[in-house]
Each structure stands twice: as C-alpha cells, then as structure tokens.
C-alpha cells in the first residue's frame, strides 16, 4: 500500500462492512484481548466528548509547536501552532488538499493491512499532516486526547509525517485520555527521504479502561535515520506495532522502548523491520517490567529480503517480572534471505536479584526502597537513550506515581 491520503478513504469505508477482526490464530494478535476488542464500537472521530480540564498537568512540558488531536480530530484552538519555523508545516489532514499533498510522495510501505488499519484509514480523517523540509530544532509535540463519549467507543487518529531530503526533526506523541471506556486506534505514517533524520518518541499513557491500538509505519530512503523511543505505560490493552521498511542503502533504524505493566494490563509491542536493500542497519532494544497480573508481549522481527546483503541487525529484549502472576511472552523472529548478514538477537526474563537487594539493604536502604532502586535502575537504561531531559523527568515522575 502507499500513502494515498485522499483516495484511499472511500475504498476503506467499503472494506469496513466485511471486515474480520484478527483472532488468536494471528501470531501478531495472539495475546490480544479478543473479547474486549470484539465489544468495541469503531467509528468516525468525535470531538464532542468532555475533556480533561487541564491537559498540561498530564503531559510533558515541551516548548514549541504543539498539535492537539481530540479523538483524532485536529483541535486548532488547543494547539500551539505558531510561530512555525519555515522548515515546518502542520495542518489538519481533513483540510489537506491535493495541492498540500503534492509533496507527499507515494511510497511502498510493504506492510500488510489488518482490520484496524483499514478502520483507521476509513475513519481517521481528521488527524494531522506534518511536513518537514529542513532542520526543526524544537520537538514537535502531538498530544492525542482520547475521551470516548459513549462506552466502548473507539476513535481513529491518523498522523502523516513527511521528512524531505536532508531534514531533521524530533516528534513526540503523547497519548492521554479520560471519559468513558473505549479507546483509540492510532496510526502514524512516516516517510524519510534521502539523508533525513527523525527521533520519534511515543508516550502511551491512556487510562486503565481504554485500549490503545497503535501502529507506526515507516519507510526510509537512502542514508536516512529513524530513532523510535516507546514508553508503553497506560491502557488496559496497550499495543504498539512498528513496521519499518528500509528501502534505501545506508538507512538506519534504531528502535528502543520500555513497557511497564501493573494491575491487569496487557502491553503488546509488535516490531517488524524489513531490510529490503543492502547495507542497512537496524537495532531493536526493549525492556519490560511486569508487576501484579500484567502481561508483556514483545514480538520483534527482522526480515532480510533477497539481495539485502551486508545487513547488520541487533535485537534484544530484557524483562523484569515482579510478581508470580505477571507474564512475559518474548519472541525474536529472524527471516534471512540474503548473504553476508549479521543478525544478533537475545531475550531475557528475570526477577529482581536477591543478592542485589541484600547488598542494598546491608547498606541501610529499606527493602521497599531497595526494590524501587533496582526497578528504576533496570528501566533507566532505556531512558538513557532519550536526549530530552524534560521527557526523561516526566517519565520518571510518571513511573514514580505508578509505584506508589
């Protein structure tokens, strides 16, 4: 498929009538809460819901451009759209004309559609279009506010990001919510032209009665660089799927993330990086902490296509399980159809180290605090990848509250 923002909607709407939701037999949906998903009511974006009074309290205080999407609808009033640097264009997808989109090239995403991505294409009509042509210094902050106006309502949010050749930017997507049970079906489509660079941070912090169906499609041209940082913290079912397609020689994708589950949360990361051409590099490095009765899923794949010689990839997934009723499913996948490749992968699942706990306690640190030091120490190693101190502080505080 490709980004055909305008023309694909009607086709998707036609498909919706005959859609089959994924089942347990689909490997990528094996641990999803199918009963819950079946009870959801997917519809067009709604902006009539009651919103949290003060969103600033719930999101990191990032200066610069802020794009607020309420149930997937571009909210110009709550957004902070100026002054925009010359290198940045931000607008509602709903208002995008053929002329606006002329600069968005058709790119092959090469990733299969599923029911939710079709639903997203059908209903995600009011999201944001971000076009970068040059260097953007301050992070662009997209704030998704998910506030269903009826039980089980799931809105669709769509963000299209186009990075022109040689551009550089940081994009932060913060997802918060309130209102009734329900959730959001979100898709971010990112295209990086030659030598473009994007740091893309997702903070998923929806309420515990929501589902978060997130999908990120990335296609990368020659010499481009994509850094993904996922903090998958909220929602009853918090899913983020990355499909990264390395389509030009010398492209690099560096994906890392942290999922931190409490209560009965299920946090599901599905990652596929396709090496379609020679001499690209990718890394996936994810950490999970699972407490109470939570479940973590990490399904990370590297797909080396025929001819993609000189591929260099690394995958690691480390998990800390804090409770007997918590569960982790970790699945590194490799499919290699090329020669002279280096693909390394490793996964670990462990408990808190008793020896380390004893060591800390022998220095006078109370057991609860010693546990917390060890957990934070494990999680902090993902945060070390973050360049932004404001984000780091927000995440640490958010995790601190979760501990309490």
């Amino acid at each position, binding site marked *: 498929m490709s980004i055909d923002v305008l023309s694909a909607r009607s086709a998707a709407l036609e498909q919706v009538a005959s859609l089959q939701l994924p089942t347990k037999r689909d490997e990528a949906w094996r641990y999803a809460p199918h009963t819950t998903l079946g009870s959801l009511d997917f519809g067009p974006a709604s902006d009539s819901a009651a919103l949290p009074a003060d969103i600033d309290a719930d999101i990191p205080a990032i200066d610069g451009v802020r794009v607020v999407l309420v149930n997937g609808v571009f909210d110009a009033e709550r957004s902070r759209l100026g002054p925009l640097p010359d290198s940045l264009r931000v607008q509602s997808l709903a208002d995008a004309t053929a002329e606006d989109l002329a600069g968005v090239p058709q790119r092959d995403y090469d990733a299969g559609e599923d029911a939710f991505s079709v639903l997203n294409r059908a209903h995600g009509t009011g999201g944001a279009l971000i076009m970068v042509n040059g260097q953007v210094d301050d992070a662009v902050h997209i704030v998704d506010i998910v506030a269903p106006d009826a039980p089980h309502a799931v809105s669709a949010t769509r963000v299209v990001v186009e990075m022109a050749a040689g551009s550089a930017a940081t994009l932060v997507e913060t997802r918060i919510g309130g209102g009734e049970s329900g959730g959001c079906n979100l898709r971010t489509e990112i295209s990086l032209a030659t030598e473009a660079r994007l740091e893309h941070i997702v903070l998923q912090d929806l309420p515990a009665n929501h589902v978060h169906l997130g999908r990120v499609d990335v296609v990368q041209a020659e010499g481009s660089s994509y850094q993904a940082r996922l903090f998958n913290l909220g929602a009853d079912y918090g899913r983020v799927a990355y499909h990264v397609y390395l389509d030009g020689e010398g492209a690099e994708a560096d994906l890392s993330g942290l999922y931190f589950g409490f209560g009965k949360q299920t946090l599901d990361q599905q990652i596929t990086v396709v090496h379609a051409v020679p001499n690209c590099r990718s890394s996936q490095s994810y950490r999970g902490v699972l407490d109470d009765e939570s479940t973590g899923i990490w399904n990370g794949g590297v797909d080396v296509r025929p001819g993609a010689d000189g591929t260099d990839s690394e995958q690691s997934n480390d998990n800390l399980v804090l409770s007997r009723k918590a569960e982790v499913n970790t699945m590194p996948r490799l499919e290699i159809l090329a020669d002279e490749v280096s693909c390394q992968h490793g996964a670990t699942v462990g408990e808190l*180290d008793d020896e380390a706990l*004893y060591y800390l306690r*022998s*220095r*006078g640190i109370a*057991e609860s605090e010693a546990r917390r030091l060890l957990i934070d*120490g494990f999680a902090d190693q993902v945060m070390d990848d973050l360049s932004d101190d404001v984000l780091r502080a927000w995440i640490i505080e958010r995790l601190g509250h979760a501990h309490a």
Partner: protein
Amino acid sequence: MLHVKNLAASIGDAEILKGLDLAVGAGEVHAIMGPNGSGKSTFAHALAGREGYEISGEAVLDGVDLLDLEPEERAAAGVFLGFQYPVEIPGVNNMYFLRTALNSVRRARGDDEISARDFLSVANEAMELVEMKEGFLNRSVNAGFSGGEKKRNEILQMAVMQPRLAVLDETDSGLDIDALRVVANGVNSLRGPERSMIVITHYQRLLDYIKPDFVHVLVNGRIVDSGDHTLALHLEEHGYADYVDAASLSGAPA
C-alpha cells in the same frame, strides 16, 4: 561492644556455624582466619543479616541483639559488611546509591538528611582515601568494575557510612599488591577508638598491612584458637592442618 554467644547457623541439614563465641571491644581489630569451608563468610553474613540461614544464639552490638533485626536495621545499628563479592547493579548510580544509603541510616537514627553539598564533601574525602578518580561515583554500582575497583568501592562506602562495626570479608581476595596497599591504607585510616573491625581472611598477607589486635582460628564452625598477631605468622608457616585434624578427631566417635 560486640558479644557473640553460641552462634549457630545452618542451611537445610548443613550446620555451618556450630556455637561460635567472640567478644570484640571498642576500637579493637580482630582477624578471623580459617581454611576454606570453615564458616568464615557465613559468620560475616550472619552478622549482616542475609536471608536463608537458620540462626540461633546471640550477637549483641551495644546492647542490641542484631539477630532480631532486618539487614537495613543492622546497618542503622552500625554494622557494615565489606563483601567478598560486591554485587554489580547496572543502572543504579554509585553516588545516588551512597547518598540514599547514608540518608536511610540517618533517618533511621532520627537524624536529618545530609545536604547535597555536605554529602559531596564527604564523598570526595572518601574518594581520596581509596585513591579513586573523579567519575567513579557517576558509574553504576560496581557494574563493570575491576576486582580492585570493587574492593575500593567497599572501603569507600565504609568511609561514608562510618560504621560502629566493620566486618571485612576476604577484602584482600582478587587484589594485586598495589590495590591491596590502597585498600589496607583506607581501612587503617578508618580505625578509631569507637570503631571495631572484624577482618576475615584466608591468608596472612593482609595482616601485614592491617595489624590485628587479636587473631582467631575458625575451623569447622567454631573458634578453636585465639592469640595475638603472632598466631597469624604461625598459621602462615604451619597451615591449618593441626586444627583440622583435631577438629575431625573431636567430631569422630570415640
């Protein structure tokens, strides 16, 4: 100061300490020597409060029986164990760890937390003591440290915590001669009339640097001989063979 009476420790059916008695006065340094498997490390961990042992007897420090306390409460009571194998804790900053430890102990004693500035001067002084370079405190606790760095870090912690009773478990193991000198100098400068030390070692070498007031021989879970520092020299020459034979004889049916 410390009175250990009839201390026994076992794991499952294995008895490791079989009625150990020891009295350590204020300001004294006692060395405990013994062959492998005699129970030296178990004694150290029994004092520090490691879980997993069946313990009986008593170990009273300044009137408080340590055996009733959690490890962190023992630290607040003034116990410090220098580990034979300091634990690597990736992701936990050495400086933050030290400050958390010091403040935990201060709070437990009803004292105010130390200010950031005062802590920095305490930490810097401790760094000088063990001849560590700047940046040492910004690394993760023991993670990727060499054997010598780990042992220096133990002494650095001891200098910051200022314990009443320091138990140093095989502090000399894995050290080259230069590191041994640094560690021993650190320990010696922390000697004082209000601080007692128990130095556990397999070899006499460490005692050339840290001169003990008393030397005890631990064999098969009991202290079988005590003397002054000349006892260590005797052991160096003759080994533990006499004691081990005697212990196995006394344990054998007549």
